[in-house]
């Protein structure tokens, strides 16, 4: 193998490694959110809204 071929192969391998690493990092990085998306169904129990005119028992 000539020196030129060797350098070409080395550069190609280096590029592949860099591209692979950046693809992996992109995949591994978490997706970032501030605003969350609504969920149609409530996970817990739901009851009908009754008389709300009474003062709340909670602080605040």
């Amino acid at each position, binding site marked *: 193998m000539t020196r030129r071929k060797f350098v070409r192969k080395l550069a190609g391998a280096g590029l592949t490694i860099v591209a692979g690493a950046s693809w992996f990092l992109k995949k591994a990085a978490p997706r970032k959110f*501030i605003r969350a998306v*609504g969920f149609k169904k*409530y996970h817990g129990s*739901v009851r009908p809204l009754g008389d*709300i005119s009474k003062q709340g028992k*909670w602080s*605040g």
Partner: protein
Amino acid sequence: MKVQCELCPKLCLIEPGQSGECRVRINIDGVLRTVVYGYPCSIHIDPVEKKPLFHFLPGSSILSIATVGCNLHCKNCQNWEISQANPEDGTVPAYNCPPERLIAEANKYQCPSIAYTYTDPIVYYEYTYDSAKLAHEAGMRNVLVTAGYVNEQPWKKLLQHVDAANIDLKAMTEDFYRQVCSATLKPVQNALILARASEILVEVTNLVIPTLNDEPEQLRELASWIKMNLGADTPLHFSGFYPRYQMRNLPATSLRTLEKARKIAMDEGLNYVYIGNVASKEGQNTYCPACKNLLIERSGYTILKNRLRQGRCPDCGKEIYGVWR
């Protein structure tokens, strides 16, 4: 795929199927979802003084809501049954009340404003934001009662639709915030400064807990920080602690301690300092900072007398900080 919630300074990294620390923001298939949008667990009509807000439409009723969940885990939480609950537990039922219905309910009961309160409106951010926007369009006002543990960008966005806020400043040390609340102090101070700068009405609450944050030096530092950063006119409420949740080993705060705290804060130069959670005559009233005459007399959440005229002292004409109509 993991998601990261950038709403509050906790910046939770959430695995698929798991929730953030607040319990209500969940990673479902690589998308952050809020499971409480439109599902308040508590909805009541309260006097605005209960928030507490003493300089905002005194004597008015306020539609008050909360969903389950909180990004803080204060060991002394007074509302831990809802703030530390999971929706899936089934222990706390919710109501189906999307923003449009919320506004309709406020209209029905002739409430001029809506409070996002009881737990922390930051964890039901999207529901708060959409409801507040809609309420503004309907000519209503919005109030937040919050610990102020939120990142700058979402906070600034939310403040555009807020008229008043009562923000907790729980103590002046990082140690207290870490050990008692599993949070940090700096973001709260930043949220307070941003809120005041946005020109909404800001009132501050400090829950005085015996042996943890009731030292005169700590109270002085707190009052001084408020004066320097938020202004002398910012109302401060010293609230009495009651043994609750994971902090049942400490006694309730005495009236004497709260009165001392009030005196310290007033000596530091704050103009409006109140006492809450404990019956106090002077500590519930508003006095003119210039001529010292009584302006608003309160008993509990009831207004006995309101002498303000167009937001001014009727005796000396001083303008009083607040939203009065």
